[in-house]
């Protein structure tokens, strides 16, 4: 399956090509090149999918991982070497399919959405860079390769958030996203380095093999600051994952990242990049499960909290994309929680499978939501949902697809979100009841805020808009087709028999819908939807009354629990004032001065010995002979000593 390397090479070549050509080619041509390139990737991904699952199939009832390509990149010493390769196993192929499909759809959508924007060529170049790095990330055979692509993904996300670089908000947001994720990646890097110091390998296979025997034996008994080194390492790696996947308290970059072009948000900040943290934990799941169970417990705790937090904040937000961003935060935490509560082997690992399943379905309905939001924004030129309303009659297709996505994310049967959410809830119900009840509350909250959003945007009453009503119309066909295709995925995506393909120990097992849990969640959903209908379907002031009734609490939630402000205070006061200023003083007075003095001394010496190079041949010969004599003297002294 060597051809699988093409799937990485093609986007990279296109990035290079578009980047180099720049404005020398027409903008639509760059879009076309990018779209065709990703289209080829989609074909390759589906061929790989078909060949892996249906041609090669299982050996000894186990999905074997295939490494079609692996070469040593840096061979520093025998102990320290970095490989580059391609790893194909069920989860990486699942990710391949998701990433290429969503990117392809987003590319097509962008052809309509980005038309006429300046710098379109740059946009498609960055998108290709993103696709390249994201595919490299999921196909990595070793943790270091993953880290390299992890950073590349961060860079391309940064570039796309700051695409409208003339807007100050976009610039600030891109910097924020980069710094926060980079901060988290630092933890990841340290974790990798400590891990490889003990295990002497970066390779995923080696780490996972024999129930993570390598980690448990080699790192056993090592303690640092009262915690075992294993816990440290995997907590640090989780920090990296948390940064990318926007887990509390590192989530602050994601809402701001919505400053980027909406299709890019749909691809990067909804469907693919933000789940790479979940993917990382899933990749290392056996190690987490066998070696550091306490970190998994921590993941469950933080994940549950973030999910609750995200959905509460989402209720109050007024920016259409921010509501979706907080919903993303909440849903990704759902996946994290699912991994955290999972067991290992067969049906015990159903939560792990459910997490991947939810990742799969979420990618489609969330990008559908974003693309729908993009169509709306494209039409009314505002992000504020209070300025929208009644758009259903102007753009029915968008409205219906948005409705489907809402049903799906909320988890109404038989839409795709129902299946994946039900698996997670079932697993939680039988293992950790407290988590289950919280997750159930979140299901209710989700249905409430999603339908609040839907009603406020597409129903309610038509408000004063910046644009003329005559201009309101359905978007172009290029933007509608992606919506329809994604709607199909959102409706039928849940029918994929995931447990056959993906499980903790690569063996298939069977699941069925647990109707007790399903019944409970449906009731909660109905409560959520009914209350949203009651408050937002028609024009009324009940919601404002409730907001006033809640008073301070509403304000706190509206300001996202003031977390941004807390982080700012931390950086401004604690880091800048208490750490940076003393360091700056030290740097300026001690280091700079000593280096300057050293430089001056070197300059002086250099100037004063210049005369030695006199050009007189006799002098040269003298020095030559002196050198011979000097060397003789040195060696005889050495002989005497030795």
């Amino acid at each position, binding site marked *: 399956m060597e051809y699988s390397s093409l799937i990485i090479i093609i986007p990279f070549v296109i990035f290079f090509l578009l980047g180099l050509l720049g404005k020398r080619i027409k903008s639509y041509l760059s879009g076309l090149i990018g779209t065709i390139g990703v289209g080829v990737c989609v074909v390759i991904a589906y061929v790989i999918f078909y060949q892996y699952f249906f041609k090669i199939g299982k050996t000894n009832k186990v999905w074997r991982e295939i490494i079609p390509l692996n070469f040593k990149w840096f061979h520093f010493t025998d102990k320290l070497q970095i490989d580059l390769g391609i790893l194909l196993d069920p989860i990486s192929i699942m990710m391949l399919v998701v990433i290429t499909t969503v990117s392809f759809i987003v590319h097509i959508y962008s052809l309509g959405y980005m038309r006429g924007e300046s710098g379109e060529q740059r946009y498609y170049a960055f998108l290709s860079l993103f696709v390249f790095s994201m595919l490299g990330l999921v196909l990595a055979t070793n943790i270091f390769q993953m880290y390299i692509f992890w950073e590349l993904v961060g860079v391309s996300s940064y570039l796309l958030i700051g695409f409208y670089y003339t807007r100050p908000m976009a610039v600030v947001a891109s910097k924020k996203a980069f710094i926060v994720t980079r901060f988290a990646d630092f933890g990841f890097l340290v974790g990798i380095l400590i891990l490889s110091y003990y295990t002497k390998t970066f390779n995923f296979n080696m780490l996972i093999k024999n129930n993570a025997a390598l980690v448990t034996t080699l790192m056993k008994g090592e303690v640092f600051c009262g915690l075992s080194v294993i816990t440290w390492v995997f907590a640090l790696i989780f920090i990296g994952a948390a940064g990318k996947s926007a887990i509390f308290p590192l989530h602050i970059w994601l809402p701001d990242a919505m400053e980027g072009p909406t299709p890019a948000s749909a691809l990067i900040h909804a469907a693919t990049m933000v789940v790479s943290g979940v993917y990382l934990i899933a990749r290392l799941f056996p190690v987490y499960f066998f070696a550091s169970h306490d970190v998994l417990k921590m993941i469950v705790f933080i994940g549950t909290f973030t999910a609750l937090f995200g959905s509460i904040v989402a209720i109050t937000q007024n920016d259409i994309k921010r509501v979706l961003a907080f919903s993303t935060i909440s849903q990704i935490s759902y996946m994290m929680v699912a991994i955290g509560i999972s067991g290992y082997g067969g049906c015990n690992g159903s939560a792990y499978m459910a997490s991947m399943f939810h990742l799969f379905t979420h990618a489609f309905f969330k990008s559908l939501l974003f693309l729908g939001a993009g169509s709306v924004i494209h039409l009314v030129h505002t992000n504020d949902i209070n300025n929208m309303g009644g758009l259903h009659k102007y753009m029915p297709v968008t409205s219906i697809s948005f409705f489907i996505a809402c049903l799906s994310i909320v988890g109404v049967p038989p839409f795709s979100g129902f299946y994946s959410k039900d698996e997670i809830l079932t697993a939680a119900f039988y293992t950790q009841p407290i988590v289950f009840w919280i997750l159930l509350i979140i299901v209710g909250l989700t249905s409430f805020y999603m339908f609040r959003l839907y009603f406020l945007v597409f129903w309610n009453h038509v408000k004063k808009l910046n644009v003329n009503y005559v201009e309101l119309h359905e978007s172009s066909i290029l933007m509608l087709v992606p919506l329809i295709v994604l709607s199909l995925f959102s409706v039928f995506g849940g029918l994929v028999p995931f447990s056959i393909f993906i499980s903790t120990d690569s063996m298939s097992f069977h699941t069925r819908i647990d109707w007790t849990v399903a019944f409970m969640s449906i009731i909660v959903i109905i409560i959520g939807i009914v209350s949203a209908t009651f408050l937002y379907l028609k024009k009324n002031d009940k919601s404002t009354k409730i907001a006033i009734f809640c008073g301070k609490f509403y304000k706190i939630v509206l300001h996202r629990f003031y977390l941004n402000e807390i982080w700012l205070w931390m950086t401004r006061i604690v880091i800048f004032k208490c750490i940076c200023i003393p360091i700056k003083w030290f740097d300026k007075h001690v280091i700079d001065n000593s280096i300057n003095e050293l430089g001056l001394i070197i300059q002086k010496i250099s100037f004063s*010995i210049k005369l030695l190079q006199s050009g007189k041949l006799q002098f040269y010969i003298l020095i030559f002979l002196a050198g011979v004599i000097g060397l003789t003297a040195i060696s005889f002294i*050495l002989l005497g000593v030795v």
Partner: protein
Amino acid sequence: MNFSNFLYIGQEVRLIILLVILFLYDIFSPKKWGIFFQKIAIIGFAIVTVCNFIPYYAMHGEIFGGIYMTSNLTSFVKNILNVATFLVFLQSNSWLSSKDRILKQSEFYIISLVSLFGMYLMISAGNFMVLYVGIEMASLPLACLIAFDKNKKKSAKAGVKYILISALSSSVMLFGLSFLYGTLESFYFSDIVFNVNKDPLIILGFIFFFSALAFKLSLVPFHLWTADVYEGAPTSITAYLSVVSKGAAVFTLIFVLYKVFGNIEVIWRSILSCLSVVTIIVGNLFAIHQSDIKRFFAFSSISQVGYILLGIIAGTVQGMTATIFYVVVYLFSNLAIFGIISIVEFIENGDTRIKVFNGLYKSNPLLAFVMMVAIFSLGGIPPFAGFFSKFIIFMVAVEQKQYILVFIALLNTVISIYYYLLIVKAMFLEKKEEITFKKYKINIYNWINLTICTVGIFIVGVFSAIYKYIEVLSFGIS
């Protein structure tokens, strides 16, 4: 010995054939055919270079009763020299085409090929006499080349300086060799390798011998000729001196130290450590205040050799690999720089002050870019090849616990980056005094040269296969 043994010296034979062809062509061709000479020489040499890369079965062996030894490593090393010489030929093309030199073109190619043949002898020698002959054969033609522009005072002066000091060094070497012969009673490497001991006379002989090689390498304190000669010689010859001649000396030094003087490793290691530190420091200190770019790169090349010594000091297979790898990287960087200097010098009527480079980025952005890349590579800035070669050299030295040496060398890289950046600053930030920008015309040969060098700088470092290949070859020796 039978006829098939001649296959061992296939590279030498090919070179000689080319030499003879060029020589005959020069003598017997009608006068108006003279314009083809350059093309024939360059294409012919390109063919020889490519042919030498083709591996064939008899690479490893000795001939003429052991006075001449070849192995995969020596042939690889000779290929490196070939490539470097080829690049020098490419960049000297426009310089040779000018009116007052067109009659002497043939001399340039023939003399430099003879010198290259001498270097082959140095590298493959299995006997001190052959080694000596090789060194002489490499140096004497060089003196002619340095004084190639004999009408220019500078060039003639440099030639005289070179030949005088070279005569001194070869007399010192002969003196040393006579000591070695007197005590060990043989010139053959294979005979004397086990008898070398710490006898004072042998040590004395070794040091005299080593001093002569140190002259070729321009190690401090045997370096004083370097700046004057580099400045006076025509730029292409400077490039030849700084890369080909120096590379040959480095390889010879490695082979002789590893093959013959392995028993007194303690002695030469400490001598080399001292010289390496002094060379790096002095080279750097002198480089800072130069105003002529050729002098500047003379001192830069002195300090570069200091780093090369670090790899030799390690005395392991990795050390040897690192050294050869360093030379390969150095070759591409330095030849790119000298290629650009020769272009600029040619247009600016022989002006080689650093000032001439002011504002090069504005007038010729591509040249300035290539120059910058090459300088970054020399300074050891990632991701260019120079970073990897320095990194490997330092790693090898650290493995041998040479912490102090590596520390000093690291400090000096910082200083070197300072003065290297002076050139970059001149090109990118300084303004040119004249208002009109000259867009330099660059001929096809120079383009080929610069392209090869730039690709080399980008590829050699990242593409670890080359390093691996050298490592495999190096296992035969030491």
